[in-house]
């Protein structure tokens, strides 16, 4: 009976990390995430191999692969290419069937999509070619504050007086952060201020697609509890976050490989 089970993989080649998900009948079986590094090809091969090893499978057992993300053209194995917005939509749909709006905050861009009850994209918007609209903004500020990415969220939740940033530009915010540190501002207040600035930008995108609940936040931004809180406040709604927000797009890609939809 085991021989008749079909397996599908999704590989999300992002600018910061490369993720893979293995599914069967939309059930998540294995995931792997590695830093993108200098060679997308090597990293993509590595994550795919890893999920197969975790499941005890040979590559021949895969019935389909979908590759997505900014570096999807670098995939070193034969795979169908689908845009990350469609993959996010489908991943979100299977994780939260009630979702109608999906936000993905990644290393390069923030993407927002309005989706149908079937997980199809109706409308979408992307942040501009600007670091302030993406996770890169947080990386820049965290580096100055000597805070690890994992600690940004918990630390920011301790803030009592979030710093008001007078700019929405990551470059200017970097110098503004240095000024605020010199003035004695606390790291948690600076981080909470960054979250608020980002939340305002994200909320503008979400309103641009005419938000409908439920709203789901995926991507690296979903791992930052402070950012999730700020976005929820900016939108005045509850934000749902998957258990593994960074691999949700890869999971959606794997689901699309299984569905084999005409796109």
């Amino acid at each position: 009976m085991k021989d008749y089970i079909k397996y599908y993989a999704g590989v999300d080649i992002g600018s910061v990390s490369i993720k893979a998900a293995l599914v069967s009948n939309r059930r998540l079986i294995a995931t792997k995430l590695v830093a993108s590094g200098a060679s997308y090809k090597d990293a993509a091969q590595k994550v795919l191999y890893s999920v197969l090893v975790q499941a005890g499978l040979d590559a021949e057992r895969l019935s389909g692969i979908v590759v997505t993300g900014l570096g999807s053209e670098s995939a070193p194995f034969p795979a169908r290419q689908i845009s990350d917005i469609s993959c996010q939509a489908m991943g979100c749909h299977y994780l939260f069937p009630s979702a109608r709006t999906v936000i993905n905050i990644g290393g390069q861009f923030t993407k927002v999509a309005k989706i149908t009850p079937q997980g199809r994209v109706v409308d979408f918007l992307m942040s501009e070619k600007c670091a302030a609209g993406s996770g890169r903004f947080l990386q820049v500020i965290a580096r100055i504050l000597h805070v690890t990415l994992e600690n940004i969220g918990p630390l920011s939740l301790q803030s009592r007086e979030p710093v008001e940033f007078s700019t929405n530009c990551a470059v200017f915010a970097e110098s503004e952060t240095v000024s605020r540190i010199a003035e004695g501002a606390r790291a948690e207040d600076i981080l909470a201020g960054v979250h608020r600035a980002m939340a305002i930008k994200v909320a503008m995108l979400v309103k641009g697609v005419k938000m409908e609940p439920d709203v789901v936040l995926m991507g690296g931004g979903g791992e930052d509890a402070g950012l999730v809180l700020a976005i929820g406040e900016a939108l005045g709604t509850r934000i749902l976050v998957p258990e593994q927000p960074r691999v949700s797009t890869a999971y959606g890609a794997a689901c699309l490989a299984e569905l084999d939809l005409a796109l």
Partner: protein
Amino acid sequence: MEQKEQTKTTAVKGTDMARKVRGLVKNIYRSAHEAKAQGKKVAYMMVSSQYDEIIRAMDVVPIPTENYAGLCAAKREMDRFLLKAEADGYSQVLCSYARIGLGFDSLRKELGGIPEGAPDGGMPTPDMMLGSSAVCDPRYKWFQAAGRYLDVPTYSIDVVWPPVDADLKAVRDHYIQYQKEQFQGLISFMEQQTGKKLNKERLWETIRLSDEAWRLWYEIDRMRVAIPSPMPAQDHFSVMVAGYYYPGMQEAVDFYQSLYDEVKYKVENKIGVIPDEKYRILYGGGLPPWHTLWIFNYFESFGAVFAIERQYRAYDPVEVPSSVKDPVEFLAWRSFLRATQFYEKARANSGNPTVERLLGMIDRYAIDGVVFHACRSCRATTIGQVHYKNILGRYTDIPMMQLVSDMVDLRDYSEAQWKAQIGAFIETLAGRSAR
């Protein structure tokens, strides 16, 4: 979805006539250099300023500075001019057409001649500069700023139109009279500069030729409702050269007649731009990305053809009352009627003339999706796009997308972002077809 490697900047054209436009463009600058060598007057000018026929009737050879900026971008030869203007203190948020023009003039002054390798031999030094307020304010101020590098006289006219809720009957005569006075001021200036009086018969002739060219162009676009699409938007952004840079000349009429014949043949024989047309796209507005026109072919690789566009054919033919016997008054009337031709429809429906034009195109051309291009340094064609998209959303549920870059400044463009957006847009169109 399969994706294809793209290395070139220009687009593969759909029609033979569009492929011939390069010659027309080269001729603009060659003619200006020749005229200059022969002691004739040449003038910097702004496209779509409603004064083209006057320039031709005065036998002044126009140099369209905005077109030159687009040409530089298509040749990827714009950076040194942009950087020079910025080094001279012009902000990166100023119109990039203006920055290229100002940077070119600055370099020419500094080098004492046309910068080496400037596309199409560069622009000769003008004898006068003719600005206008039509479309945006940089077009009025640009040539005044260029006075920093060029010791030649400048004259800018005001081109006006009423707000959409104005009582047209009540304001019409005032607007036409004002516009006529603006043209008369320009004519006096040009007469002074050339030492020649305007020949009104000659002006009537240029108007006749210009209107005939635009009528043919309008008829060509009407044929583009055909499925499959006989002529794509990237061709439009080439063939516009005849309408905007050769108005009042027989060359424009001949060009559009040949294009008309070609498009008619394609329609009658069902010859499409691509073999398998799946989606028909409307280019909803924004100046074209001159630096990356192959992007239209990228859409085509997914079966999506830009069937029609709103940019660069701003008006349909209008009928000036036969009682108008003076050609300058005719130009003023025509300008007013062109600017207000969608007002009545707008007042009866969405309230916005641009939206009315887009809705009409979506309906007539069987459009599946709309793409806008937001240009960071062009407020005139970018502001309003989100608003149009929102109003359109009340009347249609077809997917719409806004790509962001600039018309000529490549620093505002991200290929990875565009490809990601286009991929998702095509999938949204496909998903909609599947529902």
